[in-house]
């Protein structure tokens, strides 16, 4: 049986490099149309929130996708886990906090999860995606295709170790 994967991505398509998350989801969504053998569910939002904890139910693997102002270019890929972080991120949660909420509200350990953070630098309203970010998107798309080609936790860990 193929692994059930949830791609949970966020960003605002009209705020410069914040569009990286939605753009990557759009690209992979088109690609997935030709891969009915894969069990991949895409969830897109403006930011990670408490209710996304419920989107993780029944997943085998979860990948959080977002623009990241602190990542090294072109992107970072890292394993993550539930953490009680009071991340002071206003109307949004960190991926770690989403996993923690999932554990608390469902009473079960959340599925193994990774973060794909695409380096972005410009986030002004009405700005297009920067050329540098557009380049990071292409490299990240290649990486995501590799991940989906082998949807096993050990394989994803091995790829994350390379970053």
């Amino acid at each position: 049986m193929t692994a059930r994967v949830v791609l949970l991505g966020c960003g605002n398509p009209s705020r410069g490099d914040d569009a990286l998350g939605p753009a990557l989801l759009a690209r992979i969504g088109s690609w997935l149309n030709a891969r009915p053998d894969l069990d991949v569910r895409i969830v897109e939002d403006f930011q990670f929130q408490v209710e996304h904890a419920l989107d993780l139910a029944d997943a085998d693997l979860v990948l959080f996708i977002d623009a990241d102002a602190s990542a090294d270019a072109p992107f970072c890929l890292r394993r993550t886990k539930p953490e009680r972080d009071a991340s002071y991120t206003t109307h949004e949660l960190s991926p770690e906090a989403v996993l923690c909420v999932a554990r608390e509200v469902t009473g079960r350990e959340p599925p193994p999860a990774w973060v794909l953070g695409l380096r972005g630098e410009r986030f002004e309203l009405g700005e297009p995606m920067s050329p540098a970010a557009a380049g990071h998107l292409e490299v990240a798309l290649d990486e995501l295709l590799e991940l989906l080609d082998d949807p096993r936790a050990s394989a994803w860990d091995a790829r994350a170790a390379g970053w």
Partner: protein
Amino acid sequence: MTHLLETAARPRALRRVAIEPLTRVEGHGKVTLLLDEQHRVHQARLHIVEFRGFEKFIQGRPYWEVPVLVQRLCGICPVSHHLAAGKAVDMLVGVRRLTPTAEKLRRLMHDGQMLQSHALHFFHLASPDLLFGFDSEPERRNIVDVIGEYPELALQGVKLRKFGQEIIRHVAGKRIHGSACVPGGMNKALTVAERDALRRETGQMIAWSRDAVAICRRILDASPHAPIFGVFPSNFMSLIRADGALDMYDGGLRARDAQGALIFDHVDYTHYNRHIHEEVKSWSYMKFPFIINLGDEDGWYRVGPLARMNNCDFLDTPLAESERQVFRAAANGGMQHATLAYHWARLIEMLHAAEGIERLLDDPDITGTDLITTGERTLEGVGVIEAPRGTLFHHYKVDENDVVVRANLIVSTTNNNQAMNEAVRTVAATYLDGQKLTEGLLNHIEVAVRAFDPCLSCATHALGRMPLQVELVDAAGQMIDRLTKGADGLCSEGQAVP
């Protein structure tokens, strides 16, 4: 009414305290306090540092794109912008009255937005302060700890929010970036199967909402802060239905003064700029609206849940109306002026929305298919709704090529701008004057701002961009102390600069 503590007489002789940015508030905000050597507050200002460019973002676009485009102004309340823009665009195509089905679908979507937004605010943003206390350890004041200690309550909050979003998804066809509102109506009908699936859950949502009102009331009753925290007189403004009921989607503008006397009533919102003017101040990006007749000093007002509960004559759903009567009785029938009463009012509105959703789903019109009305094109459109945080104005002018040439938006947070400054000043004067600065005391100011649930910016969020820093700067601009909140919620004190 406005200038107490807004501008110090000799600011260069004072120490400066900056809280930047505010936590659990959308976007970036900063509070600066100028203190003298005895720690007395001489000046307090709330700065909004990322709140601009909305109008420029809209100008130059064809009007039919605007309802979809404006959802990207705010990741927290995209539906509110979508509906306000939809109403303005209706006017551009000569439509002031939609088909019954189209109007009810918009109201249903609006109630879903109200439910999910208010649930997020109470259970996620406000409950850590209310349940653990303003002075509790900062690392506990977050939703994860709320879930740990009050798992049932927190789960209800998550499920209420999820249900509100399911309403939006079914009406709009998509969870985000939907195109539900089109010029003159709606894009998609609600199927009977969708209606039935949603209807099966409404009883539980109403019960949880009712419980949440009771919990909030108990917390505030037991709180030593509630009667004194951020209490200040103000005017109030909101939309009102022709019979005086609260109306979130349509109606006329009503404003009352601090004693409850009417300033204006049932004003056609398309004439809003005959009654409201926006003042620019040199120290803030955000404008300061005021009621023209009262002038800039006395004409500022509050909007949002507190204003709506104070302004309306009744709520048209039975359980929420019962709670409103308790709310008003607590102020002896007068106006509620306590900042923390925003939370109570917000939850009464959440109950009102849950009841409204059930009523709309029971209405046969909701699954109708007559969705579009047409009319004579005009070149100017105004749309106003009551968004979760307060009155929201969208005003567009288009040219003969259907391109928006002028846009004016007054968002809820702008309407509350002066009131939030007043709340900061009141709390600072009460809790910080003569005190040594601590994280807990500074959190009191954040609690006051959070009560308004402001969206200080909209939807930029990338990972790793939200530090929180408090700095003490002397009269010469030299930083003499620093307090930093990390991503783990812990505070660390920096070294004083010699």
